[in-house]
C-alpha cells in the first residue's frame, strides 16, 4: 500500500489545460521566497526533519506553506506518481532541501529514521494506514481532512494517537486561523455578541467542472495502478468521486464548514436529516448536491444548522453563518464573505468596536425604493460590521505552525484527531442520511472510540 495524488479544492483542471497549468504554477512558484532553515528565532536543535506523503494539489499547498515556516527541513517525499515526485524534488531543490524520493511510504518509514514529522496529503482512504504507520514509527503526523473514508478508519487513527502518544493534527486549518479564533473566543465567547444562537447555516457551492486529466506521457502503468487499488488513470485522478477512495462533496467541501459548526457549538450534532443526488454528473459514484439539517444541543439550548454543498453552481460561495437573537456572524476563510450584523434590539456594541473586535461599515446609500412598504412585518435592515482581524499568511500556514510548535512543546494542537472525529461522525452520518433518506440520531455509541 502506498500513496497517491490528492487533488483538493483548488481550481480543477482538465486534460487540455493540465500541462499549461502545471507549467504556469511551476514558473510562479519559482519566485516564491524560501524560509530560512536556521532563522533568528529557531535554534538549530529546533529544526524539524519532515516528510511529505502525497504531492497532489493539496500536498503542494502544504509543501509551499511549510517552506515559509522557519526551522522545518524536508528530507523525504513520497508519491506513487513519478510525475509528482519529480515535481517536488526539483521544487524543493530550489529552496535548498535535498530530499530522498519514495514510491512506497513503508519503505520511506523503514529507511528514514531521522524524520520527526510526516505530512499526509493522499486520497482519504490512505490517511489511516499511513498516519498509523507513521505514528507507530515514532513520528508526529499532520494529516489532511477527512481523516478517513470510513468511520472505523477514523476511529483507528484516534486509537493509534492515544496508544502511541504521538501528535496527530487533522488539517481543519480554520481552527488556527486568528480570524476564526477571535470570532469564537472573543465575539461569541467573551462578548457574547449574538446572544442565544438558535440557527446556523453554511455552504460551499462550486461551479460545474470537467473531470481532472493527466499528461499522456506521464500516465501510470495499468499494473501499478491496479497494485494500489485503481482501475485506471481517470479513477486515480478523480478519486474524490469514488466511494472506495473518498467521501464525496460533503466530505471534501462540507468538512470545512461542518467542522466549524461543531467547533463553535462545542460538540457534534445529535441528529441529522438530509437529501441529495446525482443531479448533473452521470459518471460519479458520489452525489453532486446535498442539503443537510443538523440538530445541536448546546449549553444555550437547541440550535439547528442547515448546510448545503452544490457542485453544479457556485452561487453564494462558501461561508458559515451563526444566527443569534442579538446578531448574526457570517464567517468565511475568504474575508470578503465575512460580516457581523447587529439586530436593532441588541445591546450596545460600542465597547467592542473600541477594542477593535469590530469595525463599523460605512452606512449604505439610501435605497430609493425604501419608501415602498413591502410588508409591515419586515424587520429593519441590520447594521453591518467587519471583523478587522487579518491573516498575513497563506490559510494553511498557521495550522502547520501550530503543529510544528506543538512538536517543539511550545503549543498544543488546535485540531487533534479525537476532536476532529466529532466532525468525521457528523459528515459520515450526513452521507448516510442522504443515501437512506432517513433522519439519523447520533448517539454516544457512535462517538465511542
Amino acid at each position, binding site marked *: 500500500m502506498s500513496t497517491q495524488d490528492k487533488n483538493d479544492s483548488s481550481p480543477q483542471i482538465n486534460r487540455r489545460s493540465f500541462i499549461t497549468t502545471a507549467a504556469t504554477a511551476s514558473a510562479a512558484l519559482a519566485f516564491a521566497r524560501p524560509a530560512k532553515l536556521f532563522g533568528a528565532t529557531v535554534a538549530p536543535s529546533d529544526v524539524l526533519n519532515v516528510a511529505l506523503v502525497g504531492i497532489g494539489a493539496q500536498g503542494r499547498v502544504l509543501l509551499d506553506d511549510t517552506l515559509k515556516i522557519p526551522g522545518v527541513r524536508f528530507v523525504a517525499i513520497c508519491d506513487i506518481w513519478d510525475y509528482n515526485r519529480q515535481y517536488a524534488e526539483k521544487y524543493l531543490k530550489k529552496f535548498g532541501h535535498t530530499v530522498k524520493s519514495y514510491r512506497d511510504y513503508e519503505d520511506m518509514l523503514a529507511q528514514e529514521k531521522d524524520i520527526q514529522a510526516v505530512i499526509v496529503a493522499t486520497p482519504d482512504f490512505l490517511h489511516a494506514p499511513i498516519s498509523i504507520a507513521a505514528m507507530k514509527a515514532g513520528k508526529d503526523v499532520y494529516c489532511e481532512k477527512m481523516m478517513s473514508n470510513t468511520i472505523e478508519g477514523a476511529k483507528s487513527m484516534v486509537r493509534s494517537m492515544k496508544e502511541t502518544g504521538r501528535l496527530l493534527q487533522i488539517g481543519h486549518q480554520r481552527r488556527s486561523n*486568528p480570524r476564526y479564533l477571535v470570532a469564537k*473566543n472573543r465575539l461569541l465567547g*467573551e462578548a457574547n455578541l449574538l446572544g442565544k444562537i438558535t440557527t446556523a447555516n453554511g455552504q460551499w457551492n462550486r461551479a460545474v467542472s470537467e473531470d481532472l486529466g493527466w499528461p499522456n506521457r506521464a500516465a501510470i502503468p495499468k499494473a501499478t495502478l491496479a497494485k494500489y487499488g485503481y482501475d485506471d488513470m481517470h479513477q486515480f485522478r478523480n478519486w474524490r468521486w469514488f466511494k472506495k477512495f473518498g467521501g464525496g462533496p460533503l466530505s471534501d467541501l462540507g468538512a470545512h464548514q461542518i467542522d466549524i459548526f461543531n467547533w463553535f457549538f462545542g460538540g457534534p450534532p445529535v441528529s441529522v436529516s438530509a437529501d441529495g443526488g446525482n443531479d448533473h454528473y452521470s459518471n460519479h459514484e458520489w452525489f453532486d448536491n446535498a442539503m443537510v439539517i443538523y440538530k445541536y444541543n448546546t449549553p444555550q439550548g437547541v440550535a439547528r444548522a442547515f448546510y448545503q454543498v452544490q457542485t453544479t453552481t457556485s452561487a453564494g460561495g462558501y461561508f458559515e453563518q451563526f444566527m443569534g437573537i442579538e446578531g448574526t456572524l457570517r464567517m468565511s476563510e475568504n474575508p470578503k464573505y465575512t460580516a457581523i450584523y447587529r439586530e436593532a434590539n441588541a445591546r450596545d456594541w460600542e465597547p467592542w468596536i473600541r477594542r*477593535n473586535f469590530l469595525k463599523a461599515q460605512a452606512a449604505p446609500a439610501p435605497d430609493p425604493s425604501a419608501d415602498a412598504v413591502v410588508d409591515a412585518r419586515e424587520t429593519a435592515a441590520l447594521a453591518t460590521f467587519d471583523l*478587522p*482581524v*487579518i491573516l498575513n499568511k497563506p490559510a494553511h500556514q*498557521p495550522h502547520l505552525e501550530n503543529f510544528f510548535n506543538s512538536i517543539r512543546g511550545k503549543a498544543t494542537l488546535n485540531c487533534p484527531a479525537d476532536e476532529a472525529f466529532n466532525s468525521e461522525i457528523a459528515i459520515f452520518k450526513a452521507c448516510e442520511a442522504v443515501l437512506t433518506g432517513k433522519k439519523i440520531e447520533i448517539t454516544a455509541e457512535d462517538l465511542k472510540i
Partner: protein
Amino acid sequence: MSSSHNQPYDTSGQTWAFLTLRIWLGARTLLAGLEKFSEKITTQQPLLDANGAPDSSGAVVEVSKKVYGISHYHGIPEVLKTKFLDEPLLPQFLTTPFYAVLGYALVILGAALLLGIWTRLSLVLIGLLYTMLMLGLLLIHQEDGVAWLAIHAVLIANALLLSKHNRFSITRK
C-alpha cells in the same frame, strides 16, 4: 487688531451679519483646504485582550485613522482627476498647477478671512476659486456640486455687499 475704526459702532446688526458670513466662509474655506492635507490610513496592530496584552490567538487587526500632513496632500480626489483628464477644455498644463496650489490657497485665504486680513480681497479670491471649481464640475455634469458651489457664491456676494461693516479685523480692507 484694529477694532477702533473711524466709523461708529454699527448697532443695526449688519456688523454681526457680516461677521457671521466672514466666520462661516472663513472656516469653510480653511477646513476645505486642511482636508486636502488629510488621509485615512490603515495600520496593523496586535489585538489586545481585556488586560491590554496581545490576544492569545496572535491576531492582528487593521485599524484606520485619519492623519494630516503635507505628505498626504491631494488637490482633488483621484476620481475627479480621472474624469477631468477626459475633458478637452481642461488641459493638463492648467489643471496640474491648479491641483498643486488649491489646498494651500484655500488654507491661506480661509485663515486670512477668519483673521480679517485683506478681507474683501480674500472674499473675491475665494469667490474666484469656487468659480473655477464650479467650471470643472459643470463640464463633468455634476449638477449637485454646481448647485452647492452656487450657494457659496451667493454667500460670498452677500458678504461683499456687507463688507463695509467689517469689524474685528487685522487689516482695514
